[in-house]
């Protein structure tokens, strides 16, 4: 076959291929639902890499190991309220480990780098030129972060409860439902918070988010003063104690550490905070501009 004939054949092939792709004006309209589904399934697939699955399992098993060690190594004196005290220690440990430590760690991994990871992967530009894509990416990534974290802490709660029950904390299963619910609420609210920090501080997001998690939620949240009410930690702690029917209102410090408002007030404040933070993040990323990089 001559070179001209080969060229003609290639040209014809290219033409036919382009004809096949021609949508003849039937291009789909932008759809938040379709793009959200696309981002959600894409991000979900990305969670199933060996490293991420190992991390998920590690996060789920770590609290169980710690609780095993704590219960096994500490022996409370067998007084009348021995079981109740064990139950309180176990619940407090679960609260500190799951909605606080594990949720914060998971969100540092998943929610904080929402913009930064796209910038480093140089994939941000592909997304921002799609109508409404910034919104879908934010919400899709957020939902996956919540799912990943919530499922991880739920498994951890189940494991911890089973181990505690096995080691003699007979009331362990009484707190399971409450801790699972608090875990999911923590994932939703902390997810929104970390995503907001990631969007506001796009270049040093991890530093700011870590500092916030330790300084505000970790330290300020446990200060026995009114200032702790500005933290999510305070709201979650109050909810958990409410659902576990633990009454510390009689204790002078209990009121400062824990709740004064009703369960609905805590839920309302956290729901409002979540919506406000997500709206703030959307506003921020809709206005973000990044220098176009050329590699060549």
């Amino acid at each position: 076959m001559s070179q001209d004939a080969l060229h003609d054949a290639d040209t014809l092939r290219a033409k036919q291929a382009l004809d096949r792709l021609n949508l003849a004006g039937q291009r789909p309209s932008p759809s938040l639902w379709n793009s959200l589904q696309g981002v959600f399934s894409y991000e979900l697939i990305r969670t199933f890499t060996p490293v991420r699955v190992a991390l998920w399992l590690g996060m789920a098993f770590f609290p169980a190991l710690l609780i095993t060690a704590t219960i096994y190594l500490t022996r409370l004196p067998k007084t009348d309220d021995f079981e109740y005290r064990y139950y309180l220690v176990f619940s407090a440990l679960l609260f500190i480990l799951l909605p606080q430590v594990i949720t914060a760690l998971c969100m540092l991994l998943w929610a904080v780098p929402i913009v930064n990871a796209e910038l480093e992967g140089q994939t941000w530009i592909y997304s921002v030129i799609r109508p409404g894509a910034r919104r879908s990416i934010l919400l899709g990534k957020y939902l996956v972060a919540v799912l990943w974290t919530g499922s991880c802490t739920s498994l951890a709660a189940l494991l911890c409860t089973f181990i505690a029950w096995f080691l003699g904390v007979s009331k362990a299963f009484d707190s399971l439902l409450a801790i699972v619910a608090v875990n999911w609420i923590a994932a939703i609210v902390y997810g929104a918070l970390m995503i907001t920090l990631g969007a506001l501080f796009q270049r040093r997001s991890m530093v700011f988010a870590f500092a916030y998690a330790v300084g505000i939620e970790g330290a300020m949240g446990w200060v026995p003063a009114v200032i702790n009410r500005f933290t999510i930690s305070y709201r979650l702690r109050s909810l958990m104690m409410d659902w576990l029917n633990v009454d510390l209102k009689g204790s002078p410090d209990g009121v400062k550490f824990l709740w004064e408002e009703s369960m609905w007030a805590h839920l309302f404040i956290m729901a409002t905070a979540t919506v406000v933070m997500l709206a703030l993040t959307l506003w921020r990323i809709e206005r973000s501009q990044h220098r176009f990089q050329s590699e060549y």
Partner: protein
Amino acid sequence: MIQLNHTTLLYGTVIGVNDFHIELPAGAYALVGPNGAGKSTLIGLLTGALRPTLGNVRLYGVDPSRDSTVLQRIGLCPASELLVHGVTAFQWVKLHLSLSGWPIRRAAARADEVLDLVGMTEASHRPIHTFSLGMRQRCKLAQALANDPDLLILDEPFNGLDPIGRHDMSLLLKQWVSAGKSLLLASHVLHEVERITNSFMLIYGGRLLACGTSAELRHLLAGLPQEITIQTTTPSELAERLVVMPWLRSLNRGNSDQSLRISVERPLELYQNLAVWAQSGEVDIHQLSGSDGDISALFHLLVSKHRGEILMTGVSA
């Protein structure tokens, strides 16, 4: 199709695009300039990813940074490297179809089709991070073509492609243009874009140096200083006549004893004088060669002018 009205974009104190004023109807255009000329920034403005500091941008009559629905009509293949981990080409293209509004199932079928078009069928279910640079380029192109855009914007699309890939890409883009679709092709390699389109925008330092077809640009070149090599059996006689001419910028011996390499500011006057001298038998000229057939010569001259290295008269860019 594209309107830039005195558009300027500043990155802090650095100028990305400087007073760009142009109106382009639908068609195929090459945006040519060296690295750092402002090509990618200009593309950022056209796609609404960047907002101008001064002036405005209109794409199909609307401001892309305010009304993002117009972006449905664009397919963009940026120059930046694609660095995604743990995701296959199929999944990645499918994601971008979903972002354009495609339902998941239709997006999957479409992703297969478009990856087939760019010759990635066999590798479509391999993770992108295992791809060569050329394969990533094809992947990026597939993503840009997937939504059947009216305007395809490609930033350095030939980078990383092997000769066969370049050939296939050229054919595909030629077909794209001949099908009546619009194309904006940014590159710093002129000969590659010359095969695809005959309309050029030369850009340097964020400014538009010149714009037009290759014929128009060559016409522009006729009035610009040029380097010419003359093969002659009478180099001394010719040199004697040339050195007194006011339009001569430099004169050097060529590679052989019988050649002169000269630089002239008004080449048309040189050609007229050479014709007279040759006709009178005073000098004997065998061959004249210059670089006026090459757009790159024009480009380099325009850049020199922009830098203030050449003073020209009667030439407008």
